[in-house]
């Protein structure tokens, strides 16, 4: 039963799967940015769990630390592309070392970016990205939705 449940969850441990020293909000501000994490890892990982009907567990622990803007940009873009209604029940954030990050993402980031999505206030892209998934008219579509500014 436990193994069955386990297989329903895809995991990302940021320290091992992405970068131990996470950076700022935008790609043009430094390496390992929130924008970069979203486009190189989080968007694909979430679209996969959505299609397979699984959960995505993101473990924030054991890195050097985070900027609030890194998490805001990464998880905010996820809400912008998939809506809070789809993301919230399919994502689990592990942050035992700094529990306030989990609270910030769930309580503030999700709501702020949902408002942003509704008001069509598009996020800034500071680098050219490959096509990424977005939930449009009830299905996932891959495209370059926003051009580099």
């Amino acid at each position, binding site marked *: 039963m436990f193994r069955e449940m386990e297989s329903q969850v895809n995991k990302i441990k940021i320290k091992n799967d992405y970068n131990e020293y*996470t950076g700022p909000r935008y790609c043009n501000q430094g*390496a390992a940015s929130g924008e970069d994490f979203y486009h190189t890892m989080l968007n694909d990982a979430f679209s996969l769990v959505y299609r397979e009907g699984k959960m995505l567990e993101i473990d924030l622990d054991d890195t*050097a630390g985070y900027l*609030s*803007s890194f998490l*805001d940009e990464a998880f905010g873009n996820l809400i912008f592309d998939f809506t809070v209604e789809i993301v919230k029940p399919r994502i689990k954030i592990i942050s035992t070392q700094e529990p306030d990050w989990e609270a910030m993402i769930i309580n503030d980031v999700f709501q702020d970016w949902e408002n942003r999505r509704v008001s069509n206030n598009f996020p800034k892209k500071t680098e050219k990205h490959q096509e990424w998934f977005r939930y449009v008219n009830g299905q996932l579509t891959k495209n370059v939705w926003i051009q580099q500014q």
Partner: protein
Amino acid sequence: MRRRRRAKIKRRELNIQRNKFNPYKERYHKRGKERNEEIELDAGTNFSLLTHPEAVIELLHRLEGCKKVPRYIKRIFIDLSHIQTIDIDAINVLLAKINEFSKIKRLHISGNMPNNKNCRELFEKSGFLDYMIDLSGNKFEKKSLNFILSIGSDKTLNEKIGRTIEKAMKFLTGVEQKYPPVYSIVQEMCSNSIEWANPYNNRNRNWLLGIQLVKKNFEQVVNFALTDIGFGIINTVYRKIGTKFVESFGNIDDLEILKRTFEGVYGSKSREPNRNKGMPLIKDRFESGYIYDLRVITNKVFLDFSAKENSRIIARNFPGTYYSWSINKKCLERWNPK
């Protein structure tokens, strides 16, 4: 024909006269490459940013003024010999300011050390001399584990900052280990600076992260100091016109504006609703006890989070932002009780 000949003779006479010895002209001539003069700046007796910020800021302004001196001035000499009180904070900002001159090749900066024994010792151990050479062109001998890390760049240097913090933690715990609250704070400060700095001058960002390892009352303490020479928070915080109007009638001074900035009262300059979480995060890490003795100097404000009675408006404008804070074992225990 005759008139032309006379004009020619007159011109020749004038030329002869102009070629004669002219004392004014001789002096003027020396203003060229051969002239080699020096400006001397006296740091005074009180060189402490936390107790006498005005005196330190005055020296920074005088150094700033030196960028516009005539070309025949080739050297700036900073006289630190009369200093009777000094702190690591003043040394950090002085180094940050001197660092700016590394881009002005025609000006060389030199100086002496404080005569006062205690001040001299603190100065030698601060890490300041790691960036200097002696008169023979050799590097100074390192006398302590303290260091000042130059992180001037248009990008955040994640790994460099992370590893530096890990090394500093070894002083407290005996092993290199991560301390996310301090990493977050330093990165927040640097990324703010990158994002809102003048985009045309962004490549020459000038930050210094000073780390001082000290023993206070049988307790090991790591002091951090981050200096960002630039515009300062008060000059860059975004306030709506309506807010400015209300505040001007409510006797809200710069000190109150800075406090409100840390409380997240104002919106972000980008005007995006999801922004402005960084400054409140710094305050939160202090209130949670993960750091202590947090002090901020920016523009004309000195904000002391630990001793609010010390917070005040200062007479001179600090050209940038200066943060200092400390951590000890208690902070680590509060952060990670396990």
